[in-house]
């Protein structure tokens, strides 16, 4: 049954289905609550720049996060609050990066979803779509060269990001090197405003797995049980040396591209279709039906999530902003090689 621990050092090995399903759901819910809080802060004018939510994609993202373990490499993308939390990223990292706290992992230099901790295996995304995949490949190559046999690397992409040359180059590269890469694609039907029909002409994005000689599976991204099965098996296969694994999930972004976007281009038909289901509601029904949770327990869990998020925000709001005079304006680690000009 649902317990009160909301974050952990590293993903536990999935002891049983029961624990993992509930555990995964907890991360989904925590991510939803955290995302909603960031959106509220944005509307209140407390966040500079954009806010990007994973609403509707939590089941997929959390399932990936819980399937990975310490020692793996994870390069989350824009809608992976849930997967980050499940992989072990503290709530504070998210809040501090959005609010620009100097104590956060990015120290106010980068913001919102552009955060990570390379030393903890979380690679910090750059905005350029598709660019993280080959970086994960390189990390996996290095681990292999160092004699680490059982580390997996995972990264995420959208339907739109799959049109980049970077994606095609990197998936082919992973296949040639037979790397333990798990590439999770959230086909949420749109890339910003652009619908799938203007993005690609193949019947299924999964066709691309075959094109590069890698294993692929499709999954209903709104269904927690299905996502857990798909992601667990993909990670297990990669870990077992079966080469790159492509997972393509169908779902819908249940929000704007960012919070500035009202997403009026998403058609009512698609919202009412199967991909438009809210994965949180689907998962709750699954948990109740399987007797893995009760309604009061779910309500309690939500309250715990809200409390944890509120506490993190209250903490960060008291933290200092970066001070431009104390800032080290230094983009090289070798300080003696910095190129100095007289000005400024």
């Amino acid at each position, binding site marked *: 049954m649902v317990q009160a621990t909301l974050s952990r050092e590293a993903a536990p090995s999935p002891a049983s289905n029961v624990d993992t399903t509930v555990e995964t759901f907890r991360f989904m819910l925590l991510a939803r609550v955290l995302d909603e809080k960031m959106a509220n802060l944005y509307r209140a004018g407390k966040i500079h720049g954009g806010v990007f939510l994973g609403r509707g994609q939590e089941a997929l993202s959390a399932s990936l996060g819980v399937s990975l373990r310490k020692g793996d490499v994870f390069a989350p993308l824009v809608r992976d609050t849930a997967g980050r939390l499940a992989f072990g990223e503290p709530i504070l990292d998210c809040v501090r990066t959005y609010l620009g706290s100097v104590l956060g992992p990015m120290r106010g230099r980068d913001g919102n979803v552009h955060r990570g901790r390379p030393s903890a295996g979380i690679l910090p995304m750059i905005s350029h779509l598709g660019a993280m995949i080959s970086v994960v490949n390189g990390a996996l190559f290095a681990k292999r060269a160092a004699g680490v046999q059982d580390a997996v690397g995972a990264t995420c992409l959208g339907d739109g990001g799959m*049109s980049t040359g970077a994606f095609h180059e990197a998936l082919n590269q992973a296949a040639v090197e037979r790397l333990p890469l798990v590439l999770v694609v959230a086909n949420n039907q749109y890339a910003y405003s*652009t619908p799938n029909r203007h993005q690609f002409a193949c019947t299924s994005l999964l066709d691309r797995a075959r094109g590069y000689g890698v294993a692929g599976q499709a999954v209903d991204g709104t269904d927690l049980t299905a996502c857990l099965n798909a992601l667990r098996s993909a990670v297990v296969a990669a870990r077992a040396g079966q080469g790159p694994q492509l997972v393509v999930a169908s779902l819908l972004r249940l929000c704007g591209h960012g919070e500035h976007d009202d997403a009026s281009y998403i058609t009512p038909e698609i919202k009412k279709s199967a991909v438009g289901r809210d994965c949180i509601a689907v998962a709750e029904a699954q948990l109740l039906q399987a007797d893995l949770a009760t309604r009061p327990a779910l309500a309690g869990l939500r309250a715990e999530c809200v409390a944890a998020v509120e506490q993190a925000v209250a903490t960060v709001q008291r933290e200092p902003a970066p001070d431009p005079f104390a800032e080290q304006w230094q983009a090289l680690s070798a300080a003696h090689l910095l190129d100095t000009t007289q000005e400024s």
Partner: protein
Amino acid sequence: MSITYLEAIREAQARALAEDPRVFIYGEDVGQFGGAFKATKNLAAEFPGRVKDAPISEDAIVGFAVGAAIEGMRPIVEMQFADFSTVAINQIVNQAGTLFWRTQTPCPIVVRMPCGGTSGSGPFHSQNMEAIYSHYPGLVVVTPATVEDAYSMLIEAVALNDPVIFCEHKLLYYHLKAEKLPTEALPIGKARIAREGRDMTIVTYSAMIHEALAAADELEPEGWRVEVVDLRSVKPLDTDTVMASVARTGRLLCVGESWPWGGVTAEVIARVTSEGFALLDAPPQRLNSKDTPVPYHPSLWAAHRPTGHSIAAAARRVLRQ
């Protein structure tokens, strides 16, 4: 009636589409959605089939434009952000930039690049690319600082037979307004005196014009009259106008929002010192952003780029020499 910098860009594209059937617009989300910044708002409806959504494939977007240009069309490409043009740099510099020189076939494409920093945008949605593209042969690089120039230079860019990198500054999109669209304009390649003065010259371009004008205001009560030259196009660079201004003032400060190494400010100073050394009463100076990626937090961002105050401080140093 008033019109913003962004609306001027939209109006210029509407006019280009209306006047020339060879013109089309291609880019991510530019169709029905009207673009991430709404620079193509309603154009897909007004010009059916001529304002096309592209897959997220910047390299292929620019390659496609070059191919269409070879066949006689006049594509306008919208990069969603200038920063993403790095993905297309191969097609821009090696394809578009070399075509005429290699084959005498013109390459009339315009690549619109929403550039420049806005607070909270961070390292990948704030970059200025004019120095990179100016470095390569075969490209015209323009940096409009006013509503009028945004309009007239975009119209002229579409009519030109060469590839034009059109650097439009996001900070100017909504706030900069004019009463009406211009009916006549300086051509691309000519700089403009944005403010007359006699004590020193500040040469700059794009959004930094407005910071330089603020600096000139700040210095006026101190008795200094600062001339501000708006380069308008950084390649070609109107050395004559710069040199004539320096001949009047004897002092030069070059300001750019880009990074300090090389770039437009270094180019201007190199030209003035090598061709007009005797005109100078003090060593020319330049002011750029700091040599780090563009930071996210507003307080870091504001310290990273030149501002009215930091330009005024740099100008005082030049004036006191």
